[in-house]
């Protein structure tokens, strides 16, 4: 009975033929490697995102007035709603991470070279689509960060030459962030971008079958256009093994661990946000993007203003072009990273740059600590033995909000230098000039401080040095 059903299905669907040309196709035995598991890992994350996303859409309200409340409901009331949100959040983090690993691995193994150019190009576009999913997903978590994140997006669009104002309108679906903006991003996140991903993914996988998976590169084995494909076909004929069941084992083990890791993170760390409600009148907020965009967020604070517009609009285009066109200017030759030192250096420098920027982005040393002037404490030693005038200066340092940018005793903003030893660096006259005129990143306080206040402030700052270090002095006077 079972056998006849199987035979009937086989007759109608040609399953054996389908299997041979897809899952059972022959691959080089060298690809049975732990380095080759990231592609299927990314696919697993994507499937998980589709399933959890669909389930979240059972409850989520894509309306500016109700989205935030529906997320609260998911977090606190809906059965396992928090868990679904947590898996979707951690799934996205893992998807970006594993996809990056896949990109780096295929780059280092020369997989983009002849004849797999289109596989690389479609993969790069898939990577960009995934980042697009990350950004739009962050907007659907319609909270304060999402609201001001849209503001940041619009500000970037506003820098586009000639059609900036129109681009802002197109992005926001109107003059200002409102209900239609969220609906637009919902449509992008749920229909447009996932649809594009599915289409591109089909192409990506079709190309892997058409041109075969990249063999594990051996140093000295160079790609020559005239001979590569015949060599590859010969190798498959002689030594090729079916992907299922010979090679898929490592993919399965990796995918299982990946699922366990995502679930564990979801259980231990829970869902992300939502933070405060998306009410623009609640201005006591410090917006920050999700971790994927922290490096960009950090770079925007550290770069000089004159190159900002170029960095925001020009550099991404150039970098993406360099990445996508890689197989067209480096399509042959050595594949192994052991013979491509520059490739290794590029990956290491790239990761280092992103890592340092993301690290800085997590604690934003450039942002004033908005509450430091009323919250930050001062060590007792900083008051002892001071004259009434100097103590008056100590109060002014607090009340004039100096500490939002300057720390004392390790407490306060990091925007400007710490003031603990300021008297060893600046003389009294220099301190007066700095306070009144400002310079560099310091605003001028001349208009906001009475002369007596400046005197008290500077008198206090002149005491801020350790007893074992001399005060700064003017070289010309001695």
């Amino acid at each position, binding site marked *: 009975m079972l056998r006849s059903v199987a035979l009937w299905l086989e007759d109608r669907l040609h399953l054996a033929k389908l299997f041979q040309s897809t899952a059972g196709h022959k691959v080089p035995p060298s690809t049975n490697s732990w380095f080759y598991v990231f592609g299927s890992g990314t696919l697993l994350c994507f499937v998980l995102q589709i399933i959890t996303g669909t389930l979240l859409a059972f409850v989520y309200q894509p309306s500016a007035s109700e989205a935030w409340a529906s997320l609260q409901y998911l977090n606190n009331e809906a059965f396992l709603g928090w868990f679904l949100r947590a898996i979707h959040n951690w799934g996205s983090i893992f998807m970006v991470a594993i996809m990056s690993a896949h990109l780096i691995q295929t780059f280092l193994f020369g997989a983009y070279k002849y004849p797999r150019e289109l596989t690389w190009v479609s993969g790069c576009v898939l990577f960009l689509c995934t980042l697009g999913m990350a950004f739009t997903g962050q907007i659907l978590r319609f909270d304060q960060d999402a609201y001001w994140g849209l503001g940041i997006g619009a*500000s970037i669009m506003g820098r586009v030459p000639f059609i900036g*104002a*129109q681009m*802002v309108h197109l992005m926001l679906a109107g003059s*200002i962030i*409102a*209900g239609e903006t969220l609906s637009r991003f919902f449509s992008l996140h749920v229909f447009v971008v996932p649809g594009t991903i599915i289409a591109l993914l089909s192409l990506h996988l079709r190309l892997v079958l058409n041109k075969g998976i990249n063999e594990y590169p051996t140093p000295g084995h160079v790609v020559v256009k005239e001979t590569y494909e015949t060599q590859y076909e010969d190798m498959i004929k002689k030594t090729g093994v079916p992907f299922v069941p010979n090679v898929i084992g490592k993919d399965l083990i990796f995918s299982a661990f990946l699922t366990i890791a995502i679930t564990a993170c979801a259980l231990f760390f829970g869902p992300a946000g939502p933070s405060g409600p998306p009410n623009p009148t609640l*201005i006591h907020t410090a917006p920050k993007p999700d971790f994927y965009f922290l490096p960009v967020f950090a770079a925007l604070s550290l*770069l000089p203003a004159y190159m900002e517009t170029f960095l925001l609009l020009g550099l991404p285009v150039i970098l993406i072009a360099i990445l996508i066109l890689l197989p067209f200017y480096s399509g042959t030759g050595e594949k192994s990273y052991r013979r491509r030192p520059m490739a290794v250096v590029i990956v290491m420098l790239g990761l280092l740059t992103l890592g340092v920027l993301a690290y800085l982005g997590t604690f934003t040393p450039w942002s*004033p600590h908005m509450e430091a002037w009323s919250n930050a404490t001062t060590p007792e030693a900083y008051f002892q033995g001071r004259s009434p005038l100097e103590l008056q200066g100590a109060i002014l340092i607090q009340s004039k909000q100096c500490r939002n940018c300057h720390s004392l005793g390790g407490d306060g903003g990091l925007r400007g230098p710490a003031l603990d030893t300021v008297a060893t660096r600046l003389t009294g006259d220099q301190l007066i000039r700095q306070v009144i005129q400002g310079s560099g990143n310091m605003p001028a306080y001349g208009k906001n401080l009475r002369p007596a206040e400046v005197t008290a402030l500077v008198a206090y700052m002149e005491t801020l040095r350790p007893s074992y270090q001399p005060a700064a002095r003017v070289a010309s006077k001695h």
Partner: protein
Amino acid sequence: MSESNSDCGCKKAALAKSESAGSVSRRNLLLKIGTGLNAVAGALVGVPLLGYALSSFARTSKTSWITLGSLDKFPEGETRLAVYRNPESKAWDGDTAEIPCWVRRVDAESFQVFAINCTHLGCPVRWFQESRLFMCPCHGGAFYEDGSHASGPPPRGLFQYEHKVESGELKVLGGHLPSLAEPMRKEES
């Protein structure tokens, strides 16, 4: 096809050949008509669809004067947060319909109304009364009380709204997110 039945005589073969040639050109014609018709039909449905999807690119929204309240809400020499309702708000806008802005009353007659958005990347700036500075929480931009740039990455001073005093009320031309491309909305003439 015609070569295979050589025993049927050349007349029949020639007939078959001319028939198949005729049907090929007829197929070509139908293919051409079909493609052309679909191009027309596609444009017929596609152009309006694109127009709908990209309509916000054309910026059709109107400006209108919105009141921020009576003048005595704003003491002379002070800077206060004011909130207005977006004149184009929809029923489903929720909290996002309430737009904040900073109002500085310079003296009895003159005002400055600043957008809440930092000119760097749009984050909400906060007013610090004691140091008389606006500070931005995102990348550390700072502005003086008259909105001019004091320090940090912002490329210009704070965005301002067009405003006027009418029948004891302060009114602004609001309802748009100012950006470097469109810093201020002007009244339509």
